[in-house]
């Protein structure tokens, strides 16, 4: 009587493979940065300023992707920049996901006053323009990794909260929750064992999206010079510097931009791919 439903295979999709590969590659860059980067990312050499990438006329092949206006190696700076990007993505993404999902779960499952309070808070939050809000926050908190993380959590927890709340509310109405209550399951048990696993695919999808957003926010903050510190190389910082000399040395702008773009894209595609693959209910 077992019919074919259990046997429906789900192959990893191309987007899952490609996005995961790119992210694993960036992770490798971040972890191995000191070992694999050809130059010191901070070392300046004014005699080798604005050298083009290797295939162009006048390039110096030891600087594969060229150098910036201060003669620093673009490739090495991109490699080192991945450290800040991934650190912020992981810490800020997880922290935002945790805070937002927890509040969303509580609001959606407990309803009543808790829900009223949390939902009003979300409404108020939504009225702030996020990037301005972030800049304001950093101005108050000062620059540095922890302020960036806090800023991202404070700005973006509502994204998780709204979606998870709706999902938790849907799940709460299902008969299996009633059965679990009858079977003596307490509130914590219901949230953790019954509702939790059902909202997890949504949370994971949002989480990867959020990591991408965190990378962008970090880049924006670096762009306006409000990020970690001025000397650690960041993609956003490189883009900001590259912008000033884009006609003379486009590569300083374009390479970090492409890497940033691919990374953010990969995060969002990874979420979608994972959701398709691991959601136990075929949708």
């Amino acid at each position, binding site marked *: *009587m*077992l*019919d074919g*439903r*259990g046997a429906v295979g789900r192959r990893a999709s191309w987007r899952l493979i490609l996005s995961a590969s790119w992210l694993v590659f960036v992770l490798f860059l971040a972890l191995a940065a000191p070992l694999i980067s050809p130059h010191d990312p901070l070392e300046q050499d004014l005699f080798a300023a604005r050298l083009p990438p290797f295939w162009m006329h006048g390039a110096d092949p030891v600087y594969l992707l060229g150098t910036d206006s201060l003669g620093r190696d673009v490739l090495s700076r991109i490699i080192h920049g991945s450290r800040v990007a991934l650190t912020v993505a992981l810490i800020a993404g997880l922290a935002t996901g945790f805070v937002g999902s927890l509040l969303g779960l509580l609001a959606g499952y407990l*309803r*009543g006053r808790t829900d009223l309070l949390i939902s009003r808070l979300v409404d108020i939050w939504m009225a702030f323009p996020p990037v301005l809000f972030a800049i304001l926050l950093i101005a108050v908190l000062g620059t540095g990794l922890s302020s960036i993380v806090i800023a991202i959590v404070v700005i973006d927890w509502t994204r998780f909260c709204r979606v998870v709340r709706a999902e938790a509310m849907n799940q709460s109405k*299902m*008969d*299996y929750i*009633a*059965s*679990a*209550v*009858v*079977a*003596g*399951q*307490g509130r914590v*048990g219901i949230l953790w*064992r*019954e509702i939790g*696993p*059902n909202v*997890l695919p949504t949370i994971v999808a949002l989480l990867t999206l959020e990591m991408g957003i965190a990378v962008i926010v970090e880049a924006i903050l670096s762009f306006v010079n409000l990020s970690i510190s001025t000397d650690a190389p960041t993609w956003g910082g490189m883009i900001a510097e590259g912008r000033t000399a884009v006609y003379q040395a486009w590569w300083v702008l374009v390479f970090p931009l492409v890497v940033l773009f691919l990374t953010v894209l990969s995060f969002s595609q990874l979420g979608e791919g994972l959701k398709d693959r691991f959601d*136990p*209910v*075929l949708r």
Partner: protein
Amino acid sequence: MNAFLAIRNLSAILRGGSQRVLRSVDLAVEAGEVRGLVGESGAGKSMIGKAVLGILPSAVSIVEGEILLDGRNLLAMPQKERRRTIGTVAALIPQDPLTALNPSRRIGRQITDRLVDILGWTEANASARALELLDEVQIQNPQRVMASYPHELSGGMRQRVLIAAAFAANPKLIIADEPTTALDVTVQKQILKLIREMQARHGTAMLFVTHDLGVVSKVCQKLSVLYSGKVVEDRAVSEFFAEPRHAYSKALLAATPKYTDPFASLLPVDEAVIASVDAEVKAADREWRHV
């Protein structure tokens, strides 16, 4: 009077309103007996079951009455004790096998949960018991079903799993809320037969909610007819089918399609009858407000 479940004078209202959804309900289920609960959609059948199991929606509040389970009033207990009492002696077979199993958890765990959590069994013992039960509800390859997710099973199989889960902790009372409505006709018959067999074998008392008087005649010994939250008839099934007392019950029985002549009696319940029951309900409400 030694009923396992006794509901006495139970009234419930929708929060914020004064309209009752349950109107001084009296209903008893003796140990080992099956009582049918019939009535049209919206009559409050599920509400009664939910009240007993302590899973009423928050919009509904009980304003008077008692629910005695094995002689102890559930409504007078502190929340924790009530949950425990219900969890150890009562279980639910829900209507919709699609939403009654958690889509993200394996079947096995969903059966063993209660054994482990409430009764303190070891995982191994609980699994063995679950296997035994899946076998009892005639699921082939129970090992494999234990490890499956709900979406891998057909509707009929899910309902079998739910029946197994309901009987797992050897409950003394099972509330079956239209357990076959969501299934197609051939599967309905098998599931009905299964529920009856399991009930007889385990000697479980059962409150069987249904629309279908045909089902009642096959499964139940006693019957309560509910109209608009009010019990209008409470009889032994054999007596009821021989001679229903209440005008509404008569009309209901007349409106039930017969297999011999399915179209002959598919008439809606007579409007005059409805008007008279409505008047009766209104009269009861007036009287109630004066108390």
